[in-house]
């Protein structure tokens, strides 16, 4: 029985109809084979638009539906559901995009209309070959994996755990807390960072639903939404967490000192060390690269002095497989290393600092006990703060890091507050971006404190002085673009507001979890506006700065969003899984086994008895690697099979003459 197709062409207000003659396209479609009805409408996705489809299915007995509108990535599900409500299997539907791929990108209305017709003809021809398919319903494992224990990961883990679901929180470092634990105060309220983060960190440690795994990373992830298995590798801490009381005697006795990463190189730490007394867990960690015992086999000062017999040099790397239904990634950011921007002299002049280093100079448990001091122990009389180092810069990162203006203002205030009003502070900025709640007010307050703002990106920081006054100082050379004249400002200290950037191993992590990165290196969300926490991979969500630069309030809000999405799947307990997977027709398969090794998911097995290959539909992802290669054509992806693709091509090519002109060429 020939199919009865309904074709619906959308105007999308004027988004489509402004360039494409939607009415004309519908008239053209009405003339195509098997088309029972073709209509055009202002907004197909609106309720009346959908009702139109439903009514036609019921009253005209449509057996297939085609909608020509926006990208199927936006509304395919909407229309599939409408078909379903009308009583039609949702896979007997085809959508073609005449907005993003046509009206918005073809300049000439005639050409745009012609292209839309071609696309509709392809879709109509294809839909004839569609088959009914039924989604599988799979259980969702109630547990959730959260990767990264910065403020975002902490928030996500707490949100989920408090709903009663179990969370595995995996943190690579020895303690949770992330970058926030390095700060002293936070803008714009100047809350003490530890005062607001420590209670949350402790809450994680005390939450019975959270299984906290520090020194750990996910090394392999298998499965699909609802049923993920993650292999977690835990590096040895060399101290037994259950025995350690956190007294810190080992760190006192350890004879070996090396530069501290947590102190951004401004202070030393022991081979056995801990970020801060507030660390969670508060067990120290022995660094195998610097520990004398682990390198040379002798010392053991910590072991001799530990009152709790917690030191354990025999600890080995261990692996654990965790089963979860959903995953939240909260791996955070790195800051750009400004050494490569040689004009700013970082690494060459001792009084040039990064933002994170300056945070440590302000921190009460930092290298200077919270006093802003130069390496010579004196307080600086003048400080230059350079904004946008590596941000908004075509040669580094084009994007704005979104926090630097604000933390620069925080530094302005801290300098005035700690050193005294006589301290001179110069901000070199491009634009001040104070967009958040209370941010503009904070900017105003700092301006009133007598800070100088110079608009212009400095070309250089140098110690080449031109006058006696400049001697012994660092000179920031810039152009004041508001006054249009060059300036030289001599200061004692320079702080570089370096860009936030994607983690250096972001591509590796993206590969492990099967998600993508944007052009800027950060993890790619499903949709920039409407799907900022989900990813293209079902059941994997993002939280915090791993998705892009954010301040703490935004990172926390984003994390709660990610947690909420993971929870809605976990709470429902089941998920419907697309039936568009592959199938090998046993009557055609010659048993060549070509497909077996091609399948990246090991979903294909050879059935020895029948001498054919068989696909395990629960493992198949529907990538079609097997179908694209199967020499006998036995392997086919459902909804993307050979008949359907051929039909689409036929539909497209029958209309080729609409755009191509030469005479005397035969078209099939």
């Amino acid at each position, binding site marked *: 029985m020939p199919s009865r197709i309904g074709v619906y062409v959308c105007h999308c207000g004027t988004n489509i109809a402004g360039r494409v*003659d939607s009415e*004309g396209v519908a008239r*053209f479609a009405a003339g195509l084979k098997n088309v029972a009805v073709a209509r055009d409408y202002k907004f197909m996705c609106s309720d009346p638009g959908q009702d139109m489809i439903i009514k036609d299915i019921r009253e005209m007995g449509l057996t297939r539906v085609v909608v020509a509108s926006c*990208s*199927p*990535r936006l509304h395919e599900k909407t229309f599939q559901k409408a078909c379903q409500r009308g009583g039609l299997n949702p896979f007997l539907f085809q959508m073609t*995009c005449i*907005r*993003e*791929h046509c009206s*918005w*990108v*073809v*300049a*000439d*209305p*005639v*050409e745009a*209309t*012609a*292209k839309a017709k*071609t696309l509709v003809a*392809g879709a109509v021809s294809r839909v004839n070959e569609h088959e009914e398919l039924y989604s599988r319903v799979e259980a969702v494992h109630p547990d959730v994996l959260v990767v990264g224990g910065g403020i975002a990961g902490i928030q996500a883990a707490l949100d989920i755990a408090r709903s009663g679901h179990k969370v595995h929180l995996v943190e690579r470092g020895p303690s949770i807390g992330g970058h926030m634990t390095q700060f002293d105060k936070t803008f714009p309220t100047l809350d003490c960072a530890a005062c607001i983060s420590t209670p949350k960190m402790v809450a994680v440690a005390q939450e019975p639903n959270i299984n906290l795994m520090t020194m750990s990373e996910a090394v392999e992830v298998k499965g699909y939404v609802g049923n993920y298995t993650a292999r977690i590798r835990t590096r040895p801490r060399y101290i037994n967490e259950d025995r350690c009381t956190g007294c810190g005697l080992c760190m006192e006795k350890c004879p070996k000192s090396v530069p501290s990463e947590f102190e951004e190189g401004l202070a030393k730490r022991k081979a056995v060390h801990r970020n801060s007394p507030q660390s969670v867990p508060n067990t120290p960690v022995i660094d195998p690269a610097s520990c004398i015992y682990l390198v040379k086999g002798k010392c053991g000062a910590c072991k001799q002095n530990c009152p709790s017999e917690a030191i354990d040099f025999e600890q080995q790397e261990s692996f654990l497989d965790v089963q979860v239904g959903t995953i939240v990634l909260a791996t955070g950011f790195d800051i750009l290393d400004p050494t490569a921007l040689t004009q700013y002299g970082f690494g060459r002049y001792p009084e040039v600092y990064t933002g994170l280093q300056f945070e440590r100079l302000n921190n009460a448990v930092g290298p200077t006990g919270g006093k802003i001091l130069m390496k010579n122990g004196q307080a600086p009389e003048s400080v230059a703060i350079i904004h946008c180092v590596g941000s908004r810069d075509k040669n580094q990162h084009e994007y704005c890091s979104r926090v630097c203006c604000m933390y620069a203002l925080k530094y302005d205030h801290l300098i005035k507050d700690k050193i005294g009003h006589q301290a001179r502070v110069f901000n070199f900025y491009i634009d001040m971006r104070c967009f958040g709640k209370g941010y503009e007010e904070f900017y105003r307050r700092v301006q009133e404190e007598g800070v100088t703002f110079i608009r212009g990106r400095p070309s250089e920081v140098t110690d080449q002085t031109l006058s006696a006054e400049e001697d012994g100082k660092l000179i920031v050379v810039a152009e004041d673009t508001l006054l249009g004249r060059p300036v030289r400002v001599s200061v004692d200290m320079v702080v570089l507001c370096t860009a936030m950037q994607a983690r250096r191993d972001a*591509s590796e992590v993206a*590969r492990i979890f*099967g998600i*993508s*990165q*944007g*052009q800027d290196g950060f993890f*790619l969300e499903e949709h920039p506006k409407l799907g900022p926490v989900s990813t*293209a991979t079902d059941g994997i969500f993002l939280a915090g700065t791993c998705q892009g630069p954010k301040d703490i309030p935004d990172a926390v809000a984003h994390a709660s969003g990610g947690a909420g999405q993971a929870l809605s799947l976990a709470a429902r307990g089941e998920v419907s899984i697309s039936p*568009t997977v592959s199938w090998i027709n046993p009557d055609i398969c010659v048993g060549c086994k070509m497909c077996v090794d*091609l399948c*990246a998911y090991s979903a294909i097995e050879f059935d020895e008895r029948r001498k054919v290959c068989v696909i395990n539909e629960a493992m198949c992802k529907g*990538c*079609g*690697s097997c*179908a*694209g*290669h199967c020499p006998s054509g036995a392997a086919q*992806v459902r909804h*993307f099979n*050979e008949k359907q*693709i*051929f039909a689409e*091509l036929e539909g*497209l*090519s029958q209309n*080729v*003459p*609409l*755009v*191509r*002109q*030469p*005479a005397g*060429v035969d*078209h*099939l």
Partner: protein
Amino acid sequence: MQELIATLETQSDPLPGAAFEPAIVAFVCNWCTYTAADLAGTSRMVQSPNVRLVRMMCTGMVDPKYIIKALLGGADAVLVSGCHPGDCHYINGNYKARRRVKLLMEILPRFGIDSRRIKLTWVGASEGNEFAATVNRFAAEIKELGPIDTRRLPLL
């Protein structure tokens, strides 16, 4: 404009003597290049109208038969485009596509089809600008190359 459209509708055959406008079929993967095409659209990046996208889930499912079918069906050229190496949503479907397309490009000239009529590119989900540039570049190349002579193809 309405008039122009009306003319077009009554025109069952192409305007005689107009310049050659190639027809190009593009098999693009849902996760990267199709998404990039959406982004190019959202960003209103004007493109040559000659390319029609066929949405595939992955370039790995593009059977060489589909490419041949498109060429026999009157397409002057075929673009296959997916995720960058290492970024394929299905781990490595794009490597398989690369192998197949390479092979096809070696074989087709023996049947009188210029291998320049097939192009394989990687355009990631965030590269709307790259997608538009690829389309425009390829369309220009094929315009230069001229129409495919399908009468010589029954050999296949």
